[in-house]
């Protein structure tokens, strides 16, 4: 089984061909080609063409390809969805300003249509709603559970603080509640949950501190705006040696129990139930990735 994780999702402006072609060399788990905030209105069409063709022809290696499209209430929404699905090699669409389940449903409908039109495997393209308004935070569980296509939700700190009428600080106290709420919704819906960006690319210590915080809150990954931010984040998400050993013990014990037809197993004196086993598999997968890096 291929283990996929989203510790880091690297934003790349959609109108920057030099950066687009480099997307898969920095070791990010996923790339986030952006058509929204980093692309000026008069560049939207060119960026959309560029991204679609880049995905179509460039054969990126070992990286999840996602695109942040323009929000539902913009004139670019439909064409964004159509053109990038037509590219044929898309993994997920990030939907900015997802305020309700209705928004997700609208995108889902379009994806259904274009998957069929371009003969893409039905249901293969995922949706990553971006929670970045107060109403979105409040309705985050409804959003997260609104479609089978959703396998991650994300939080957007800049827009959210703007919507709340406060400034975004480095400490991030103002979005602590929102972060916690979004994590809880994601856990309840059983999907990944990705944190917002850390804006100061020169502050590695600050980045590490924030990543520790969001990891402890339950986030499974973080969006990044500079390749330099990838390594420190992966280091924070890396399991400890003891965790890895424990994970392999759990997996071994489970396989042994399966062979012997036993139902209940224990490792290090503690009972192992399915959620614990799942966690162990995740840690083992992470350890494998770290070794590759």
């Amino acid at each position, binding site marked *: 089984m291929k283990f996929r994780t989203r510790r880091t999702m690297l934003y790349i402006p959609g109108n920057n061909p*030099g950066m687009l*072609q*480099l997307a898969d*060399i*920095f*070791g990010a788990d996923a790339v986030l080609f952006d058509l929204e905030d980093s692309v000026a209105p008069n560049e939207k069409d060119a960026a959309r063409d560029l991204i679609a063709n880049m995905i179509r022809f*460039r*054969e990126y290696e070992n990286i999840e390809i996602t695109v942040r499209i323009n929000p539902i209430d913009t004139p670019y929404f439909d064409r964004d969805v159509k053109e990038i699905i037509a590219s044929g090699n898309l993994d997920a669409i990030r939907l900015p300003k997802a305020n309700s389940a209705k928004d997700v449903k609208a995108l889902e409908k379009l994806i259904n249509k274009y998957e069929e039109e371009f003969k893409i495997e039905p249901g293969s393209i995922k949706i990553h709603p971006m929670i970045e308004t107060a109403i979105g935070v409040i309705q985050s569980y409804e959003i997260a559970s609104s479609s089978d296509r959703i396998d991650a939700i994300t939080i957007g700190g800049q827009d959210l603080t703007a919507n709340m009428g406060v400034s975004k600080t480095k400490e991030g106290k103002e979005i602590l509640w929102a972060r916690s709420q979004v994590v809880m919704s994601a856990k309840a819906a059983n999907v990944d949950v990705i944190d917002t960006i850390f804006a100061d690319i020169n502050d590695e210590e600050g980045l590490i501190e924030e990543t520790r915080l969001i990891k402890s809150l339950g986030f499974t990954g973080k969006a990044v705006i*500079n*390749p*330099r931010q990838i390594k420190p984040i992966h280091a924070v998400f890396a399991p400890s040696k003891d965790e890895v050993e424990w994970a392999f013990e759990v997996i071994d014990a489970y396989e042994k129990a399966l062979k012997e037809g036993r139902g209940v197993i224990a490792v290090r004196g503690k009972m192992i139930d399915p959620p614990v086993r799942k966690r162990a598999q995740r840690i083992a997968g992470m350890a494998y990735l770290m*070794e*590759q*890096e």
Partner: protein
Amino acid sequence: MKNKLGVKLPDHIDGIGKILPYKGPFARVRGLKKEGLTTTGVKMRSSLPGKKKVFKDLKKVIELSGLKDGGTISFHHHLRNGDFLLMNVMKVLDEMGFKDLILSPSSLTSAHQGIVDYVRKGVVKRICTSGLRGELGKFISKGNMEIPVVIRSHGGRARAIKSGDVKIDVAFIGAPSSDREGNLNGVRGPSACGSLGYAMVDAEYADCVIAVTDHLVDYPNTPISIPQYQVDYIVLTDKLGNPDKIGSGSTRLTTNPVDHIIAEKAAKLIFNSGYFGNGMTFQTGAGGASLAVAKYVADIMEAKGVVGSYAIGGISSYIVDIYKRGLFKKMFDVQSFDKGVVSSLLNNEDHLEISADFYANPFNSGAIINNLDVVVLAAYEIDTDFNVNVLVDSHGYAQGASGGHSDTSAAAKLTVIVAPSFRARIPTLVDRVNTIITPGETVDILVTERGIAVNPKRKDLLENFKGKGLNIIDICDLKKKVDKITLKPRMVEFGDKICGLIEYRDGTIIDTIDQVIE
């Protein structure tokens, strides 16, 4: 005839003479004893006690030097893009009516584009250099000089001067500081540039040495990089160069993430190569990914508690910082890359100034690079035989420098080339480089952002790298991967005229600069 790398060469070129074909990196070095060469004599000079050496008038001194039409004049390039001296001297020589001179500087920079005019006027007939840039490089690559330019490595130039292949009639030495007798150094004065390593060879073997300075100090001027007994005249000038362009305050590490990806991989390779450990010796380039390799290697050294023997080459303040962290015991400095280095060279007894001869000459009894473990170098182009081009750009114009590239590649136990697999859609990795500066048989590893290739002749390295998660692939497969992205660019068209000869460090000809057809 063809040389070992299949490059077609004439037996003889008018104005240059007999052409020796390249036969392998150490073929001539091994057979040198049989050749029985001797170092040519330098014209004996004498000096009566009390003789006045300091002059204000450059013209007068040039008259005294005995320079004639067709003579060879030399300069150093330690003042880099800030150098005023070379162009000032050319102006005076033109005014004095000199013709057909052989211009033989250690290299040429963007400060020297005006040479084109003096070639057109017939003041300069031939050029020997390490590098060519800007309009001058284009002018030459278009076939505008009758006699091909000769490109030499730093070690190769020292060899050529010492052996008499290049006989310098008058060496003009830009001296950031001098006393009245001509004791020179590069570590004092407004035009301080650090090491005078290239100029040391000129001072030793020229028939006449003219030092030009904007900073005359009380006798004796110490430290003495070039001693008074080699200096015939001292000429005072207002400004030797533009300090802002001689060098920046300090060399900063690249912020380009691709450079960092490459550098990190290269450091990991070096760590696993078998050459990493206490007492290791190390050289790296001055910028981009190659300097960044120094950062990552230093970090690993620190983490593992390893202390190297020496760092060598062009020294930048970044290397000085690594020394200060206690990671190398000494620094050998043939050329200082920024002003931060100057005070270190002046004040630190572990920071040693060396000549180009000492640095890299293959025809002496032991250059420092002969003990070099690891060198990290850049490339404009590299081919599937690992041959490297650092001179001719993708348009076919000479826009770079041979420098110490082929010297250190030949000598070092491990030669690592770091380069992005393509730049602005132009692939770096090609079937055959435009112009070979460094032969592939002296190159061990290519590190790009998309994969690492090891020269198949280095089976020992391939063995060391096994199971280290280093993603090593065959260079031809790496090329295919890159070609798929860039597609094949249209090749530059070249004519038959030879515009330049690439002289290997041992004096044989390894390749040519061919005429660009526009």
